[in-house]
């Protein structure tokens, strides 16, 4: 009996050790201690995230379009490999997984808090812009089944025209919400500092842009555009520019500098390449913005003429193509490899290995990234130079509205040259206002021995271009308008990419170095991170697919410059 007791005591003790004395049997450890949960979400914090992601989206998309239309440099030999599916994961993620997903939660919060219609309005404007940009680049995109994981784990694509229509009605809704006087302001508004009249102007301008893009497929689009234009309630002056202003703060958690500045102002020199065509175009034209857009580290590009007029010897080590003959398919007037005066970039579609040239290449200037103003100092780039990166990403500028109106006038037989002149003037004024960001720069004007164009030079330049426009045939008009518009879109090429697909102009763009680069990118591959896991988003076989508003001839054959 005693023995049995002893045994039971032992048993109970041991069982106790196993199952009660320790936390080893707790079967409810389902909450992740490493993160807060969705119930901790805060509306203003969502607003910050959405605004910050939006500028990244606009900037990255703008860079994609720019490199296709030679505002930036394209490093792929052929078009089909220029934007591999994985290359646009970042933009797509920003749109859907960050912004749209945050907007969904934020809208619910805004609604439950009440008096937050302005918050919702701002989100709708940003979402409309994003959706239209997605359509412009990809065609059909997920919309009605997007951001609803429970019901649609594999969203289907929506027809691109319907997404555009939805975006336009979203902008109409936004206008109403933005004008709700009962609603309180946003905690921090990085774009318009809670000036909601400007937000309304933006919404109108984005609608105009939608009509401009759809003018080939919608006979009424021009009228709808003009109706808004006639109201005058759109972005027409620089004070209303829709842009994101960067800062100079950089630490391990945040790099607030313009991404273009981040890559070009490093201790190891300039990381990116600028487009030879764009630099040559502005140089030959005597464009007053060239020293703001580009910063030269070197005054002599191999196999060309330097700024001092002396010949520069070929140098295959630093610029491999400087010993090569111009490709036979390039017309004689087309720049190849070496731009004069030390502008050092790459040709369209040149994808060779990277030589040691980072202290020779031309970098981005003071506009729009906040780098150096090029006062012919020819010093190497380095950290913290110039404007320190406190530049802007232009998302919609007043000048662009005037280019839009010029195009409308041109297609509807109206007087376009006034719009062209205004557009150029506004663009040049804005660009030149950036000079002062570079505190080191010598900003004296050319008549005082400096490099900054005088107002006389600027107006001469504008008049020359306007008269070229006025005196030219239609093709010349489209070319001049296109070239001027492209130059003014330096910093965000999305509109220019659309212009090129809409009009096929300018026809004077530099060809790819490779004579047979394949068909031009009429729309992008779907991002790998969408197409791979989503059986309802079939990857495109090529880049020939045209978005709904592009009813121009199919590739090849359009656009002519290819």
């Amino acid at each position, binding site marked *: 009996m005693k023995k049995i007791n002893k045994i039971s005591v032992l048993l109970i003790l041991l069982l106790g050790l196993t199952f009660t004395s320790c936390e080893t049997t707790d079967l409810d450890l389902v909450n992740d201690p490493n993160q807060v949960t969705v119930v901790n979400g805060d509306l203003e914090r969502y607003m*910050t995230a959405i605004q910050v992601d939006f500028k990244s989206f606009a900037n990255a998309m703008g860079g994609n379009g720019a490199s296709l239309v030679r505002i930036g440099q394209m490093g792929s030999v052929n078009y089909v490999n220029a934007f591999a*599916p*994985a290359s646009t994961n970042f933009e797509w993620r920003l749109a859907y997984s960050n912004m749209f997903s945050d907007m969904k939660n934020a809208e619910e919060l805004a609604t439950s808090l009440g008096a937050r219609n302005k918050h919702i309005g701002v989100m709708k404007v940003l979402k409309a812009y994003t959706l239209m940009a997605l359509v412009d680049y990809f065609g059909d995109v997920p919309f009605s089944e997007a951001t*609803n994981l429970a019901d649609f784990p594999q969203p289907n694509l929506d027809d691109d025209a319907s997404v555009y229509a939805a975006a336009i009605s979203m902008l109409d809704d936004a206008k109403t919400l933005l004008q709700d006087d009962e609603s309180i302001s946003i905690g921090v508004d990085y774009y318009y500092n809670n000036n909601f009249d400007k937000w309304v102007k933006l919404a109108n301008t984005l609608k105009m842009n939608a009509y401009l893009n759809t003018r080939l497929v919608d006979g009424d689009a021009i009228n709808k555009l003009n109706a808004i234009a006639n109201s005058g309630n759109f972005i027409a002056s620089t004070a209303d520019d829709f842009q994101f202003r960067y800062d100079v703060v950089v630490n391990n958690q945040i790099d607030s500098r313009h991404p273009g500045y981040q890559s070009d102002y490093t201790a*190891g020199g300039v990381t990116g390449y600028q487009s030879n065509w764009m630099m040559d175009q502005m140089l030959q034209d005597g464009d007053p913005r060239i020293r703001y857009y580009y910063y030269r580290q070197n005054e002599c590009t191999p196999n060309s003429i330097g700024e001092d007029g002396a010949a520069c010897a070929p140098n295959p080590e630093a610029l491999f193509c400087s010993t090569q003959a111009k490709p036979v398919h390039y017309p004689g007037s087309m720049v190849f490899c070496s731009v004069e005066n030390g502008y050092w970039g790459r040709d369209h579609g040149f994808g060779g290995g990277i030589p040691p040239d980072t202290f020779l290449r031309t970098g981005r200037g003071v506009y729009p990234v906040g780098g150096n103003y090029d006062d012919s100092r020819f010093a190497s780039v380095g950290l913290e130079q110039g404007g320190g990166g406190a530049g802007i990403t232009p998302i919609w500028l007043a000048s662009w509205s005037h280019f839009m109106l010029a195009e409308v006038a041109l297609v509807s037989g109206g007087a376009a040259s006034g719009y062209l002149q205004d557009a150029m003037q506004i663009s040049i004024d804005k660009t030149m206002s950036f000079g002062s960001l570079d505190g080191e720069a010598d900003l004296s004007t050319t008549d005082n021995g400096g490099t900054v164009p005088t107002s006389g030079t600027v107006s001469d330049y504008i008049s020359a271009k306007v008269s070229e426009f006025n005196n030219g045939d239609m093709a010349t008009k489209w070319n001049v308008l296109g070239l001027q518009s492209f130059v003014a879109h330096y910093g965000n090429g999305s509109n220019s990419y659309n212009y090129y697909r809409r009009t096929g102009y300018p026809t004077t763009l530099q060809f790819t170095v490779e004579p047979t680069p394949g068909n031009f990118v009429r729309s992008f591959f779907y991002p790998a991170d969408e197409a791979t896991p989503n*059986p309802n988003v079939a990857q495109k076989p090529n880049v020939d697919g045209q978005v709904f508003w592009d009813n121009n001839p199919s590739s090849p054959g359009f656009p002519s410059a290819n």
Partner: protein
Amino acid sequence: MRTKFSGILTLLLAFVVQLTFAQEKTISGTVSDNSGLPLPGVNIIVKGTSNGTQSDFDGNYTVNANVGQALVFSYVGFNSVERAVTAATSNISLQLTEDAESLEEVVVTALGIKKEKKALGYAVSSIKEEAIKDNPETDLTRVLQGKTAGIEITTQNGISGSANKVIIRGMNSFSGNNNALYVIDGVPYSNDTNASGDFVDGNSGSSRSFDIDPNNIENIDILKGLAATTLYGTDGRNGVILITTKTGSTKNISAKQEVNISTSYFFNEVASLPDYQDKYGGGFDQAFGWFYSNWGPGFYEEGLGGWGSDAAFDENGTLAHPYSTSAFLGANYPDYQALYEGARYDWKPRNSVEQFFKTGGVSSISANFKGRSEDNKFNYGMAFGQVEDEGFTPGNKVTRTNLTVSGGAKLTNKLNVRGSMTYTKTNFKTPPVAASFGSSTFGSGSSIFGDLYYTPRSIDFYELPYEAPDGSSIYYRDDNAIQHPLWTIQNAKFSQNVNRLNGFASLDYNFNDNINLRYQGSIDTYSENNVNKQNRGGRTGDLVTDSGFYSTWNNTNTISDHNLVLSGNNYSFLNDNLGFNFMAGATSRNRKFDRIGIDSFGQQVFDFFNHEGFTDYGYIEYHEERNIVGLYGQLSFDVNNWVFLNLSGRQDWVSNTSKNNTLFYPSASMSFIPTSAFKGMKSDKGINYMKLRVGYGTSANFSSGYPTATGLSLNTQGWLDETENTTNSFVGNPNIKPELFAEVEYGVEMKLFSRVNLDLTYFTRITEDLIIGNNPIPLSTGAGFTSTNVGEIKSWGIEAELGLDVLKRSEGFNWNVNVNFFANESEVTDIGDNDILIYAGFTNLGNGARVGYPLGAMFGSRIARDEDGNLLVDGVGNYLADQVDEDGVLPFIGDPNPDFVMNYTNTFEYKGLSLGFAINHTSGGDIYSTTTATLMGRGLTTDTENRLSTYILPGVNINTGLPNDIQINNSNFYFDNGFASPADELSVYDGSVVRLREVNVAYSLPSKLLNKTPFGKVTIKASAFNMWYNAYNTPDGVNFDPNTTGLGAGNGQGFEFLTGPSSKRYGMSVNLSF
């Protein structure tokens, strides 16, 4: 019968009953084995009594018995012998003969239960002490390489102490851990690998199985199949490596005291250096340039490709010194550059990469002590080991110290207590290792190998100072885009200092001879202090990294485990014809992982590493905890000792999901011994022994982490000082279920002609409801990842082990050959609605699951093909790339799974001398090798020496549709259509390799010589590891070693991103026992 057997082992010595009769005699003698060597530990009992003894270390014994009684000599694995005691008997010396039927007999199975091997219905491989100790490899996991069929060891690289992974019978799961479970003396032992970052930014860090001291191991039993591991529950699903240490062993020792001391020294050298060509130097397209590539002019003046026609050279064939022309120095250090004004640089081949690696040394000492009290009621063990392993890479070293104390006591006749505790201190340091595509690193970390291997032949980095006046890295490139390898060695360091404690306490209570209750509590805890640091002035291109960083963090991982087992043994029924055992147990296990640390950036004072000296700080923090509670049971039956049946099952509960958090998994196995059942089958000249077995087992894998939780990420510096929150790209799945494994295995074991041992196993496996912890889901859902159960994988395989005693003499020459063979195939048969699931690597280049392809298949871009499958070439003669295949899915580019793996081990013995060597042959298995692609693409190895002609790629011109006839030059061929091509497929090679894994010569001093010394045994052994290999389908000059993994210790396979060479080791050891 059963009672007697196990009684001999465990009970009899405990009951020393003194019986006194008339005519008692003292009998003594020596027991030896069939080769004449003394046999210690032989049980000698007086038949019919519990009186007995054991032979001592020299095989000697003394026992008292009466005339008319008989002595029974028995020893595991040998036939028992009975001898009568007569009036004349005073000495009985004899040789025991091996029992063919037993085949090493007792093995350790799940939960430390010892079983006769013939009773097992599943495969268990045992590896003995001799095969493990005094090995040149200090990492036990690496030592296991090739030792038995079906176990694959992949090592990260040859860095001493670098990570490893152990996969038994192939992978089963793509998101769960596929590594085998380590269990030491019944205690689960963590084999985590906590790398410094991910494979892109930092892939340094040891696997924690490195903490095991191989010299304290008595025996390793490897449970390969699920039928064998069911009792371990979910943790045993990948197979179990059961380690019995010398100090933890419950085996009775014969002597009162045993001491074993061994010491060794090995040299450690780089094994996979390329054969660099010395005909051409740095440049591109035959023109000189300070480039990464080596396509420059020849080191000869005249003739095609010579330097004579290049304007960069003066008439003496010298160049302007790179530091005199560097634009980086001009821009940043003009005064320093002035020192080089006018300096010239000779144009000649240089060998700095070869000089970079040094010969490391591996020294170790270990001592083991075991003893027991006179009455055998108390015993103790102690082990001490110290290893210092210096790598061939400067800055790499790992040291390990182990100290174990253990002991046991029989408190009453019924209660036993035992305990053991091991303290381990491991210090690992290495220069950083991170992925590279052959142009420096592409992540934000430094990598020593990423900048080293492709040094152009004309560059000697020892001639080029690596430090600017402020300590920043400088190097030959004009833009200084590469970090100087010597700067990296000097300024970038990672270290991991581990303090680890593991041990157990157990109580055994024997209710009677049959019933036993056992409790074991155990703990395994390590504290891993990590320091990752780099001075400011690096050249990774990442501003934050290059500002200097200092990260310090601690990982604490604790596994607490409780086990309570009630077992009943040795029941017999029906006149002993039916035997029966049972066991029932309960277990609970807690694993808690905490990481916390600080990440500082912006170093203010060069070489000052203290967080005080940095401008910006970040946090490093992660926590994870999970409990598993299990109940298990086992029933075993045998009929006449020739049919054995084993049924077991386990139910597990886990804590990190609220639904689907429990599962029951059963297993059953049976073995049948025809040679016992049908006595006629058995003959000495034919079949000595035969066993057939069949086993069915199941297991499950539960999600790790917090698969059901959906979070929100919070960033206190979303923009400047504003806090932002954003929805996480991961969304939880409340319905996540465990993934299920089921396996059937069939096997046959045979012993033939008294000299052939054969063990064959065939298994099939199926994994269902696979968990994908981070399953990419369409971004358009608003998320990016979730946890899902999807799909099915089927696999099957063959394991074969053949042992052959070619020559077998009791005295003299023995020659034994062992061959093991493993082949397995797997196929993904279902992945739900998905076309493909990429689970390791990058989304556009990685391992993926796709229906119809083997698990582990590699996917990436391939060379474009037309409808007929012809390769497509563009207008200038280069291959075009396809991002998608004809089904619109990321193309398949290779299968990293080998066709088969075969290991041959030969052992020759002559008296005290033995010679052994082991050869491995891995046939097939693709590898995406950045090392090979880079060395070829940059024109560095002898493979690229013949380069002055032109090349035409086979394929079809996309513009003309005709066969390609465009001639391209060397750099187009190797560079543009090699590693720089957008087609990843061009970097995939066949990883077949033949390897001389091990060679050793050992000599044991004759015992006569040692009679007058205190030593019982002295062995001197010389051994060498990985002295030669040939990956025969890769370019010869690259000398690539495919046993490397660029994706770390996770589930990635077949990728290598310039992540490091392998090592070879050779040296000597001396082993003393007394």
